[in-house]
């Protein structure tokens, strides 16, 4: 059972770079952990800190206005690359609850919804309004599947209905899969599996 997510209002952080891969979100050297916790510290580690471990002042997540933002607005194809769910765990541990891009990589998207992180793919025009207004407030409404944009107007987004249901009700997919046991048994018998 995870936290129910129905509506999210937050200012944004904008990282408009395209193709941000999961190696940037969390480098592989931090994947030696055996838990899901505490990875926010390593989020974008090599973009946030220099070789000596000092914060890079020009990196957006290090700026004071980024503090408390729960919505990350990123460029096209966010989360491409490795299947590491650590990327999602790092984002949520840091405090993010949604990622908005024009396109989000398949494996990342599936990992996101399982951890209460909303993967929102918006049309390019609406997305451009968000990238042009960093730090402004947006409202993501799962009920109506819309994002209220800064300066007025809303943009619709698609979300797989079951993922939406799980997010809104705080249900996890495994609970559902476990209720399918009879059908799985029947399949195994039929397929000789």
């Amino acid at each position: 059972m995870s936290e129910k997510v129905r509506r999210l209002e937050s200012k944004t952080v904008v990282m408009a770079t395209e193709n941000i891969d999961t190696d940037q979100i969390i480098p592989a050297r931090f994947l030696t952990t055996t838990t899901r916790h505490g990875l926010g510290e390593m989020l974008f580690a090599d973009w946030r800190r220099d070789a000596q471990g000092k914060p890079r002042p020009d990196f957006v997540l290090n700026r004071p206005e980024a503090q408390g933002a729960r919505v990350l607005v990123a460029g096209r194809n966010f989360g491409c690359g490795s299947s590491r769910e650590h990327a999602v765990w790092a984002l949520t541990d840091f405090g993010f609850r949604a990622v908005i891009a024009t396109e989000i990589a398949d494996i990342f998207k599936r990992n996101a919804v399982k951890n209460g992180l909303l993967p929102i793919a918006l049309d390019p025009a609406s997305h451009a309004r968000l990238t042009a207004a960093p730090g402004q407030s947006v409202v993501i409404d799962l009920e109506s599947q819309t994002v209220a944009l800064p300066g007025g107007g809303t943009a619709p987004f698609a979300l797989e209905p079951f993922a939406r249901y799980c997010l809104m009700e705080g249900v996890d997919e495994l609970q559902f899969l476990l209720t399918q046991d009879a059908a799985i048994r029947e399949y195994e018998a039929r397929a000789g599996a």
Partner: protein
Amino acid sequence: MTDRIPLTLFEKIWRRHLVVPGTEEHPPVVYIDLHLIHEVTSPQAFSELEARGLPVRRPDRTAATMDHSTPTVLDENGRPRFFNRETEAQVETLRRNCEKFGIPLYALGDSRQGIVHVIGPELGLTRPGMTIVCGDSHTSTHGAFGAWAFGIGTTEVGHVLATQSLLQSKPSTFEVRIDGRLSPGVTAKDLILAIIREIGVDGGIGHVIEYTGSAIAALSMEERMTVCNMSIEGGARAGLVAPDETTLQYLEGRAHSPKGKEWDRAVSDWKSLPTDAGAAYDRTVSLDASRIEPMITYGTNPGMSVGIGEAIPLDANEKSLRYMGVSPGERLLGKPVDVVFIGSCTNSRISDLRLAASVMRGRKVAPKVKALVVPGSQQVKKQAEAEGLDRIFKEAGAEWREAGCSMCLAMNDDKLQPGQYAVSTSNRNFEGRQGTGGRTFLASPLTAAASAVAGRIADAREYLQ
């Protein structure tokens, strides 16, 4: 003859594995035939099972190995020399979990250990028509056998451990058709890099690719694995090749391949898998293999590549070029390199090592270049040593290591130093992928070996012997 709707290879596998069709309330439930696990993306899934008091439903359909964070060097007693305590603890955690849940484990020290996507096919665990998952995006490799194989996150690893099933919306199909013949010195790696350049790193999102055409049919199984391996670099979670005689020849006699009458039954079933004439794909792209040159990447994603003699495009992404220290219009040929890495689930099989050795034979790795050759599995290592390839590499001055993922993702001390340039046969040239600040040029084993000898990025066609 009854009229049947012609189906694609993927559609046939999909229909066979449907446990519960999708409804308005939930996506379809599909059955998973084979679940491969490794030390890095499984610990949290086992913890979840334990927290809920759940068993592993089908340990017999699960297989584990150690590859991602494992050392590729041994200590003076012949034992793995772990990089740090965390990586050792992770390997121990996998060993404990496998013992507790009765999962077969090809552990460090086992003659069958190796990179998960190398040993699955090698052991005959990977077979046509299967659904295969692993907590690793390069699971697409197994698609070379006409299996639907894709990477999943750790939460889904838990789902499969507990139920042997996954909730899956049906992906679209994407035919990548390659006709014509690859020229001498042009390999499967060059082919897939050319494909990714064509479709883009996000071109395959939401799709399962099927690679078709005469150039694909002409590839060996290991070459097909190289192609399918990098499907995810084109955004597609899975990439398939229809099973044919080449597939059967590879599989016959493998440890887990069916035997006797079961083999005959399996073969006649596999022969029904290829896409029917007239079946429709949602999308098709075609390429002519004969026009492909040896490829090399210049940027920070696998779609940013050029033919080895071509100039970097004038409109290439500025941020990537700055990171790489290269300029628009520049040609990479002749650029000095510090490290050459030959290995990874893309290019660490015996045929890859033979290619690299064919260039290094009787030559020396250039002074100041560190060359690392890391076989994909203990079996590949043994085979290479039986053929004397290890001697060729060592005499050339390259290091010959134990099987594992190694410098592909730099989870141990096989990594680049900040600013270093590497020609690498792996699959990702992302910033820092092979070590913080390291800069990667992806290329084929031939190009990598030629560059090691030259000390600079080289055209392997001038080094064929």
